């Protein structure tokens, strides 16, 4: 099918873009189009106006400092993935991005677009949630920062107002003595995963002092579970099993054409142990601990 007719504007300034959005209750932002255009072609969405933000100036930045990584709304996934400073300051961003779609899609799709699209099967919303990041948006009332805890309100639903444009995402830097890991199971590398898990583990010597895991495709909004208590400070088969149980108590895997709910639960269990262990080892290496 083809998209339904719409009006199209490609403003050259943020002010004009905001005006165009404010002018029509059914206007929508077009960024990379890698999620929106399929929805239009399938006629699952039919906005009256598309506001193409691709020509807006000064939004394609990737800035890295000791605090973390700031990604502009027009930075493509491919660009963020290739940035060596991003990998150094917050390696989880890089690890997860390598699993976002195929290279061709990453050449056009934006990381910020993926964050506000709020798909619970997508990698980056879960990573933002796990790291406790935020998204900056600009609207008629000016600029505001939406902390991730307030960003994801429902399936495919973020708390952005319809007349706001997300301009920048912030991923906090990796803390000291902390390690990260990411793994997902997809039918084919680059496809949406049937289940994916990321973990952030902080150590003191060989003790685990904090552990959190994020899950994709096993709940309808990005899910993060604190596993510190379940692990009880150490990584053993028993404590890892307790951690997976704690996670499953929160998650709500569902059956779809790609996988049954049981299979997803199984994947979440296996991946929890694997990814928490990998993040622990990463933390030990970074902390300079011997093994």
């Amino acid at each position, binding site marked *: 099918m083809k998209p339904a007719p719409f009006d199209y504007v490609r403003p050259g300034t943020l002010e004009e873009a905001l005006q165009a959005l404010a002018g029509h209750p059914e206007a929508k932002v077009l960024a990379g189009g890698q999620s929106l255009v399929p929805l239009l072609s399938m006629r699952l969405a039919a906005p009256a106006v598309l506001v*193409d933000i691709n020509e807006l100036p000064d939004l394609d930045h990737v800035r890295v400092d000791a605090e973390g990584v700031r990604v502009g709304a027009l930075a493509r996934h491919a660009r963020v993935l290739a940035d060596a400073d991003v990998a150094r300051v917050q390696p989880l961003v890089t690890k997860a991005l390598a699993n976002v779609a195929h290279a061709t899609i990453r050449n056009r799709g934006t990381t910020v677009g993926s964050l506000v699209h709020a798909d619970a099967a997508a990698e980056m919303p879960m990573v933002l949630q796990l790291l406790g990041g935020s998204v900056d948006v600009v609207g008629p009332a000016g600029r505001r920062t939406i902390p991730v805890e307030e960003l994801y309100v429902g399936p495919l639903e973020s708390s952005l107002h319809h007349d706001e444009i997300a301009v920048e995402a912030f991923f906090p830097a990796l803390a000291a003595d902390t390690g990260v890991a990411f793994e997902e199971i997809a039918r084919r590398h680059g496809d949406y995963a049937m289940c994916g898990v990321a973990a952030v583990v902080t150590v003191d010597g060989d003790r685990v002092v904090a552990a959190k895991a994020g899950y994709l495709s096993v709940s309808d909004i990005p899910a993060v579970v604190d596993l510190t208590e379940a692990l009880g400070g150490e990584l053993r088969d028993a404590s890892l099993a307790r951690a997976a149980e704690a996670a499953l108590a929160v998650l709500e895997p569902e059956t779809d054409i790609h996988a049954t709910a049981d299979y997803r639960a199984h994947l979440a269990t296996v991946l929890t142990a694997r990814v928490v262990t990998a993040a622990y080892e990463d933390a030990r290496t970074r902390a300079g601990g011997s093994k």
Partner: protein
Amino acid sequence: MSENQHEIRLTVNGTDHDVAVPARRLLSDALRHDLGFTGTHVGCEHGVCGACTVLVDGQPMRSCLMFAVSAAGHDITTVEGLARPDGELGPVQQAFRECHGLQCGFCTPGFLTTITAGIAENPEPTEDEARDMIAGNLCRCTGYQNIVKAVCRAAELARDDRAPEGGAA
């Protein structure tokens, strides 16, 4: 019902084309229907199959996931632009012929454009890297073994192209 038309200039394989299209015209359809570049194939029309892949400013992108109006002002390369100036097959096309990298040819234009950019970025891909390069493109009939071989062969041919006369690569 008349739909608003946008007058745009599309630069395809180095030549400018002025066309009037509605905003909802996909780049793939503009290339095929409005400009007659039917080498760009359309399979799924939602980004999955890769048949419609073209180069936008040298980078592979799905032409079914872009509107023609958004492509104005960018350099587009379609499969028609991959032959050598004298009309002989370009290195990736030649490699597909040598390695039997196609049968029906439906998926081929998307592979050729993707691999052209892929070997420009990585001139000496390993077999694994070759597989990764084409992971976003589906082929329904040839199978991927020969296409992977064609990637490595194309890289070889392109290196030979760049090597000075008689010199080593």
